[in-house]
């Protein structure tokens, strides 16, 4: 037996209202973050390796940090190899806002949703997070729609990626972390001469 058509939850107006309320809530309780979509360079489709990555753009958008009492993850891990920070966080962003600011066609982005490998810069803690998984079905069809993306992220470890965004604070990540050749240069020098004057 089919569902009762008189009690359908697929009213577009209600869906839009629900999404508007979510967006407004995110704007009230969220944080301003910068979303950096990744561009994969020279992907090895045999082994699935995507070592070279470029981040050419950054977009400011509001996101809600779900873990309110501190970052998730294993925290600061002390091992015999030194200290490792394994902070994790879960960011929630409204789909409509993501598509309107980041996912629009004129932007330098190839996907229609947040994808794993993209970065989120949280100015609050000066932390860069890498998206490890995007949960696109939470909350689960409350009004027969999916208004948010929930992104589980871990602290990003720089590994030679190329940052060419408009924000110098983000670009400095590669300056500080890249394998760098320090050169001293031979500057061109101009020749000089003096004239000797005498009687001929």
């Amino acid at each position, binding site marked *: 037996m089919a569902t009762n058509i008189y009690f359908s939850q697929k009213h577009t107006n209600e869906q839009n209202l629900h999404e508007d309320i979510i967006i407004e809530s995110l704007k009230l309780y969220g944080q301003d973050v910068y979303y950096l979509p990744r561009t994969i360079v020279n992907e090895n489709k045999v082994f699935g390796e995507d070592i070279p990555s470029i981040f050419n753009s950054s977009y400011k958008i509001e996101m809600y940090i779900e873990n309110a009492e501190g970052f998730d993850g294993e925290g600061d891990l002390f091992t015999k190899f030194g200290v490792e920070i394994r902070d994790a966080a879960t960011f929630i962003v409204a789909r409509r806002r993501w598509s309107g600011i980041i996912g629009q066609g004129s932007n330098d982005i190839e996907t229609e949703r947040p994808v794993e490998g993209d970065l989120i810069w949280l100015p609050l803690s000066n932390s860069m997070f890498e998206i490890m998984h995007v949960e696109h079905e939470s909350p689960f069809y409350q009004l027969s729609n999916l208004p948010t993306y929930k992104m589980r992220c871990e602290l990003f470890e720089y590994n030679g990626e190329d940052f060419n965004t408009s924000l110098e604070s983000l670009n400095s990540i590669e300056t500080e972390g890249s394998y760098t050749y*320090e050169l001293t240069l031979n500057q061109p020098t101009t020749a000089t001469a003096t004239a000797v004057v005498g009687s001929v």
Partner: protein
Amino acid sequence: MSSIISLNLTNTGSRYDSAPSVIISLPQGTPTHATATAAVDGLGKVSGAVVTNPGSYYITQPQVTIDVPTDSSNKNAIASLVWDNLNKNVYSVAIDDSGKFYTSAPTVTFSDPDSLPGTLATATATIANDRVSTLTLSNVGAGYTSAPTVTIAPPTGTPNNFRAQAAVIMKSEDSNNSIFSVSILDSGNFYTGIPNITIDSATGTNQLFRAQAAAIFDFDNKRLLRLDIIHKGKYYDSSNPPLVTIAEPPALTRLGFNIGEKITHSVGGTILRGEVSAYSKKNATMSLIHVGADDGNYHSPAASTDSDIVGANGSKVGIATVTDNNKIQTNSQNDIFDATASNVLLDFLDFSETNPFGDPGDT
């Protein structure tokens, strides 16, 4: 006359692509006017001229002008004759006053005979030194019952006809840019005093006497070997020698490097590409990140005289030394727990990779 006798290369320069242009500044002298004075002999003629200032900057032979004679009044020659009463003709003619300003032999005229049929006496005159010098009776005439009169035609010359003429002789050992002597072409006449000699001004400019030189280029070492003088120039001051300006190497005339600029670098035929992460022209340092080679293998930038780093806008620099710095191992997590991060002593134990167990004695 002071010219450039040598050019000393005090710095051979570096990283030239080709022989640069060499510019020697203009001589700082100014043209001087040649002057001369004349000498006049006892006959009223200009006998010679002495150059008192040879002048300078003469590129063509100037005109010389000698003043007109100061004696400006002409004078008729006067003749007299001896009448032959027996034969009723002219016995002889003589010059009483030779006159002056005669440019050609004047006519000599006798009065008509008194009785007919008579014959008109005739005579011819010659001039020398612009005066009447001789009278020759060519026909004694006949029928002169009384002494005739003889008249010499007046002179037709003006003082300007007797102006002396001269020309300059340029100094060959000076490449003919000053006056060596003044040669009298026509001594003129009737000078009662020493006339002025005027020599036209020089028309040369400093630009015409600028010295020229060319750079001899060492292609192997991209520097200059020497400077050759093409034109020695003239009128330079030995106490204030000219400036020698050698064009800059091509790279210096271009822009520097910008952060984020993509560069290329050739190592053994392989092209390396990278990104500038730091550049200081003052300190002659550059940092490169994301360096990769076109052949897919690992190559490091190499210090070499012929392997420039070429920027996107064509700027070039050579590499003196190369050191690599693997910053990935000293990432931000270590910085946080490094007690001396950014050279500032922090108030907690160092837990970075260099001191993983937080040894208090190893900060």
